[in-house]
């Protein structure tokens, strides 16, 4: 009783005080719990010591957060749960139906029905406006059905997006590898050309005569200069 009162006080103040169990977090208690846990006696924790260990997360049911109720197991509530008549063929769009595009068909049926329902509603409003609630309910049910069928499709779209993203990533990687390979080839070619010219000059040195057109008129120590110049040119 006393505890409840304290909690209520907490809700009323502008800045809520720490939760009531915080006063059990004394150095002494913390040490005791540690001791007990290390000796595998954690099951035997009793109040107030059991307040020191966090409870295990809930596995089912609902919880409140930011003024809304959330399901612990996050799943799309079925229309039945929401108390709405399901007007589309649920079995057709699941399993086999996904491949044959049955969902497209059902969706189109729904949108056509929606348009028709609206036209009917307009007609009713013109002739006997007091009868509109029934037709209005039709429109409402149809709309909820459309939104539901689309939301059901979300996981499918998520997988599809993942596939697209992965394909994109693979293409990027391919391009990346290709770019590196090209640069490598270019560098390798340059080196090959250069070393060929080096060889020519070396040959020139060995024979002491004319070997190729390029080094025809070069003699003495100029040949090394020529190599350097060639290298600069190629680079």
């Amino acid at each position, binding site marked *: 009783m006393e505890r409840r009162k304290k909690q209520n006080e907490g809700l009323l103040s502008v800045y809520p005080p720490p939760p009531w169990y915080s006063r059990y977090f004394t150095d002494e208690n913390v040490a005791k719990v540690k001791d007990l846990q290390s000796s595998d006696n954690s099951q035997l924790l009793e109040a107030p010591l059991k307040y020191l260990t966090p409870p295990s997360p809930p596995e089912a049911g609902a919880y409140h957060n930011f003024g809304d109720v959330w399901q612990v197991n996050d799943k799309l509530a079925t229309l039945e749960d929401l108390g709405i008549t399901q007007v589309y063929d649920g079995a057709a769009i699941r399993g086999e139906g996904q491949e044959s595009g049955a969902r497209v068909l059902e969706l189109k049926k729904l949108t056509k029905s929606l348009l028709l329902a609206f036209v009917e509603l307009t007609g009713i409003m013109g002739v006997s406006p007091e009868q509109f609630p029934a037709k209005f309910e039709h429109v409402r049910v149809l709309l909820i059905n459309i939104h539901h069928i689309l939301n059901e499709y979300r996981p499918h779209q998520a997988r599809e997006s993942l596939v697209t993203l992965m394909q994109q990533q693979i293409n990027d*990687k391919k391009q990346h590898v290709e770019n590196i390979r090209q640069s490598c080839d270019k560098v390798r070619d340059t080196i090959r050309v250069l070393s060929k010219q080096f060889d020519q000059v070396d040959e020139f040195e060995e024979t002491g005569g004319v070997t190729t057109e390029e080094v025809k008129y070069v003699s003495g120590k100029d040949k090394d200069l020529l190599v350097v110049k060639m290298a600069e040119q190629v680079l």
Partner: protein
Amino acid sequence: MADRLTQLQTCVDQMLTQYFSALTHINTNHGFKSLAGEELVKDDTVPVVTDEERERTLEELAKDLVVKSQQIDYLIDSLPGIGSSEEHQMQQIEKLQKELEHYDQVTEDVIKEKDELLEHCDELILKLAQRKAHIDVESM
């Protein structure tokens, strides 16, 4: 850009808004008819609309609704992955996962190759520089 499903849902909601505006428009812009020889009712709060004008706006409203419906149909047809089953998608994802890992390996190899080549280049440049320095000294 929003995904297709959200686009589609937005479109449906927009259509609903159109329904509402259409009804509201008809409700506020109508003429009066005399019933059983009674005198025609007059209401200053209701704007006077000629029959032609009314017909025109009605047609416009209808056309807008049709266009919107066509948009929705188009979006339904272009829903992503409408032709593939969940099983097929999972297989595809698995396959792509393997491919991605393969390309990670390839990238690693290529980068290694590149580093080696770079090292080789460093060596060559160093060699060249030494040779040049040698010539410079000799020619001085």
